[in-house]
């Protein structure tokens, strides 16, 4: 018994399961945030099926597909980063985390070019070309900008968090024995990927 207590005393005060529970609860508030937007999307797509169809033709499926592949791969690298740290391979963990951040930047660069092309075509919220279109198309592009925009903000936040984790691993603040911070950051990153998994077919694949 005293032996057991010693072990407990020796342990730093830490509750990894509790930390993950907190993270999951936070993720559910995120799911509700995006869920509300998907709900609006569903209702308006139901009301204006043809208009959504026509408006979606404007979107570039290739760029959407490329960004899907980039995000799925970044989800893999962040998972590999955690696995590497669990196995005690600090260097591989850092390389994988660095790769994830590079992929996130690539995603945003694509997004930038995609949006600039739309802007160049005069399709942006409040533009005279867009407001002259029928209601359904205005709603489609409104939802497109808000939902992919909010998603892009999540990508930026995720990138910053992962950069902090990279620094933590480097300074041994996140280690093989104490990596719940990295795990939680990974969960956030996977959520960003999950949301994109639904955004992609709903905006880019209406043919």
């Amino acid at each position, binding site marked *: 018994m005293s032996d057991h207590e010693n072990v407990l005393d020796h342990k730093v005060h830490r509750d990894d*399961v509790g930390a993950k529970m907190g993270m*999951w609860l936070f993720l559910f508030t995120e799911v509700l945030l995006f*869920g509300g937007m998907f709900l609006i999307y569903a209702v308006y797509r139901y009301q204006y099926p043809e208009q959504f169809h026509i408006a979606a033709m404007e979107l570039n499926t290739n760029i959407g597909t490329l960004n899907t592949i980039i995000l799925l791969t970044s989800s893999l690298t962040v*998972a590999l980063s955690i696995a*590497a740290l669990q196995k005690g391979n600090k260097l591989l963990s850092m390389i994988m985390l660095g790769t994830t951040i590079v992929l996130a930047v690539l995603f945003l660069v694509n997004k930038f070019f995609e949006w600039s092309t739309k802007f160049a075509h005069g399709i942006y919220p409040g533009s005279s070309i867009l407001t002259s279109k029928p209601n359904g198309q205005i709603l489609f592009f409104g939802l497109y900008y808000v939902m992919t925009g909010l998603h892009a903000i999540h990508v930026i936040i995720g990138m910053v968090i992962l950069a902090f984790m990279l620094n933590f691993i480097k300074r041994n603040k996140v280690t093989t024995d104490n990596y719940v911070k990295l795990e939680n950051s990974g969960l956030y990153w996977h959520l960003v990927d999950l949301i994109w*998994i*639904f955004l992609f077919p709903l905006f880019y694949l209406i043919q």
Partner: protein
Amino acid sequence: MSGNKHHIGYGTYVIVWIALLAFTAITVTIAGVSLGRYTLFIALLIAAIKSALVINIFMHIKFDEPIFKIFLALSGTTILIIFVLTFVDILYR
């Protein structure tokens, strides 16, 4: 972490990643084929399969404590109820 923690190897992650890419290829290909009103259903079905892979393997839900599965079921049910209630309102208004 707790001693009974299940660690997933690199191989599993790579296999899941390949599966995710394969499903992406399928969904893009199918979108080009005209399947009428099934198109949306199939696209959402594939998205759901992809999410299940990400949640179970990448996010470790399959290997974590049951409480996380309960959390997930609870939030999923909440979203479902909100969608069903809204569409009942829209359809029978």
